[in-house]
């Protein structure tokens, strides 16, 4: 259980709040710094329900950060808050700094300028995120003409360049075609090209490969990795698939019931998980190299919105929970300089006792 300092990837976000305003060297300031984000959504009776409860997250320049968790854990809501796209009546508090500018302090007009320009998003299902009645060229250039004020010819040239970047064969012809004429993988590549159109500082990718076949998924993961290496793209990837996380993300944060329960470098979190929830997620996976060991599901299901249990929200499902877990809510504490977990139980003890079946 020694922290693998040598294995750690770059850790670009050590002291982000010292330099939020003054422009220091690029790379020192994180592209995204979320601090103590709280999102509340209106419940059925109008009273606010807490969907996100104090989330901290940073994405450095050229870094890919993964946000993992089951459905309903608040992963997608974090991204929507960043784009000012919360469901009606939803409120966000805290700080969300994109290159130093706080999104939560922006006017609606400023947020609109940010969206698609400095922060772009790729959704799960390219069939619904692309407009079926507009040609690919129209959807790509609309963006460029609005944000970058390019004329038609320049926008078209840039669109061809973008389609070539995401490896769409015959990009000139592709401009005149419609989404239904492409396969699922190609459509997702087009959605990525549209997201990249304005050279965003940050790409939010919400389950970008979940709807795709594994061979196509591998292609999209390689594409995102190449864009990061060649163009210095920063990516926040949201996925429930820890395999995808392991392939792509430099750092991983695991969410449960609106809070981050563990975060750290990919290798630390996936190889030496400190939180019982992370451990449970890993045990529920079929292990490609793990022989025929039975899958171990996590008992129960995640709490519904606004019904998070007292204390540690995971305690009713946790195989290691003790009496105190229902009372005191554990904070995210640093276990090593980069690896943090929100579980007071001795990590070594957790490791020693195998997570048992219910």
């Amino acid at each position, binding site marked *: 259980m020694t922290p693998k300092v040598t294995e750690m990837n770059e850790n670009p976000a050590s002291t982000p709040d010292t330099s939020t305003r003054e422009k220091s060297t690029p790379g020192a300031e994180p592209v995204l710094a979320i601090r103590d984000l709280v999102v509340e959504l209106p419940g059925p009776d109008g009273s606010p329900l807490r969907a996100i409860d104090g989330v901290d997250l940073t994405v450095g320049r050229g870094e890919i950060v993964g946000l993992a968790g*089951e*459905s309903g854990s608040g992963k997608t809501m974090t991204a929507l808050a960043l784009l000012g796209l919360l469901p009606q009546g939803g409120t966000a508090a805290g700080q969300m700094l994109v290159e130093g500018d706080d999104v939560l302090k922006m006017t609606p007009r400023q947020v609109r300028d940010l969206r698609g320009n400095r922060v772009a998003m790729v959704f799960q299902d390219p069939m619904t995120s692309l407009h079926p009645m507009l040609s690919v060229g129209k959807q790509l250039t609309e963006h460029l003409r609005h944000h970058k004020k390019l004329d038609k010819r320049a926008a078209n040239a840039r669109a061809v360049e973008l389609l070539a970047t995401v490896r769409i064969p015959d990009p000139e012809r592709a401009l005149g075609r419609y989404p239904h004429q492409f*396969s*699922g*993988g*190609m459509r997702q590549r087009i959605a990525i090209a549209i997201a990249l159109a304005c050279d965003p500082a940050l790409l939010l990718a919400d389950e970008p490969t979940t709807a795709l*076949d*594994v*061979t*196509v*998924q*591998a*292609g999209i*993961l*390689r594409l995102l*990795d190449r864009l990061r290496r060649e163009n210095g793209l920063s990516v926040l990837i949201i996925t*429930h*698939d*820890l*395999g*995808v*996380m*392991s*392939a*792509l993300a*430099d750092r991983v944060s695991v969410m449960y019931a609106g809070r981050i329960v563990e975060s750290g470098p*990919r*290798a*630390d*979190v*996936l*190889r030496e998980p400190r939180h019982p929830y992370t451990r*449970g*997620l*890993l045990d*529920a*996976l*079929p*292990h*490609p*190299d793990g022989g*025929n060991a*039975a*899958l*171990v*599901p*996590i008992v129960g*299901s995640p709490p519904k919105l606004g019904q998070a249990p007292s204390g540690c929200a995971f305690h009713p499902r946790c195989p290691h929970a003790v009496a105190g877990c229902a009372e005191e809510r554990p904070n995210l504490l640093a276990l090593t300089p980069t690896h943090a977990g929100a579980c007071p139980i001795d990590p070594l003890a957790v490791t020693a006792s195998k997570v048992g079946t219910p």
Partner: protein
Amino acid sequence: MTALSGTSNLTVTSKDVGLRLHDLSVTYRSPGRPLVRAVAGVSLAVAPGQVVGLVGESGCGKSTLGKAAVGLLKPAGGRVTFNGRAVDTLGLRPRPSDQRGLQMVFQDPYASLNPRRRIGEQISDAVVLAGGTRERGRETARELLERVGLAAEFVDRFPHEFSGGQRQRIAIARVLAAEPSCIVADEPIAALDASAQASVANLLLDLARERNVGLLFISHDLSIVRQIADTVAVMYLGTVVESGPTAQVWDDPRHPYSKALISAVPRADGSGELPVDLPGDVPDPAFPPTGCRFHPRCPIATDACEVDEPALVEFLPERRAACSVLAPALTKVG
């Protein structure tokens, strides 16, 4: 799996027991388009107590095959038999009682359960159809709900009161009420969360083992198939390109397509290794490539592959692959 039948013994079990597909093909017609052969000559057998995994990318015809196997689609060629008798395609007439042992679990438990009927009623239908009373059916429903890990009191609830994983359990309980000896499950866990996936997959596997039920598990997710299936068949564009005992196929895939599929699965080991991608897309099944259907995407294809359609040959006991480039080498190994 009982000790008698042994792991993945297709040949030892009596020829007629269980579900068998003989050179099955299924075609779709649509106006103005050529005939689509979604399944183009597949032979497959599922013995009682055996778990057979069928994997492939979307559009490879695996769901079509599943539907034809239970008689929801009419085969264009070949035969489907269940316990030695031909499986009739469902029409207006009720299904012959000797075929009630063949049942199907669908992908989407939101669409497969009737939202307006209590789940107990839906589960007890099979008992009533088999000549039992509603009271008896209700008793069965309570027992089965407990068997699939839900509370017996849930019989009077409606589907919307349950999560996706629970609904899939209810759908499985409904299938069990017909006392099946073979279940065809078409992507039964694809719509569920990871931890629900594990528990539903475990449930299906337990049922196959304890009730000696044959299971045809259709999935695009190789890692889950690897975990629960005794034998696996890999499909590409309507044909099986490789089959064999799951562990052997996983550890030593021979067909270039199986190799590509397996190396594309990302592993959650924290290594940061990117999965290998397979360039190109699955071709339109209306216009399948000539010769070997995989040749345009195949890294080892030769000119001959454009012409000759390779046969599925048994190169080791129970291991089959369809590749004319590898064929000579395969037999040498055997």
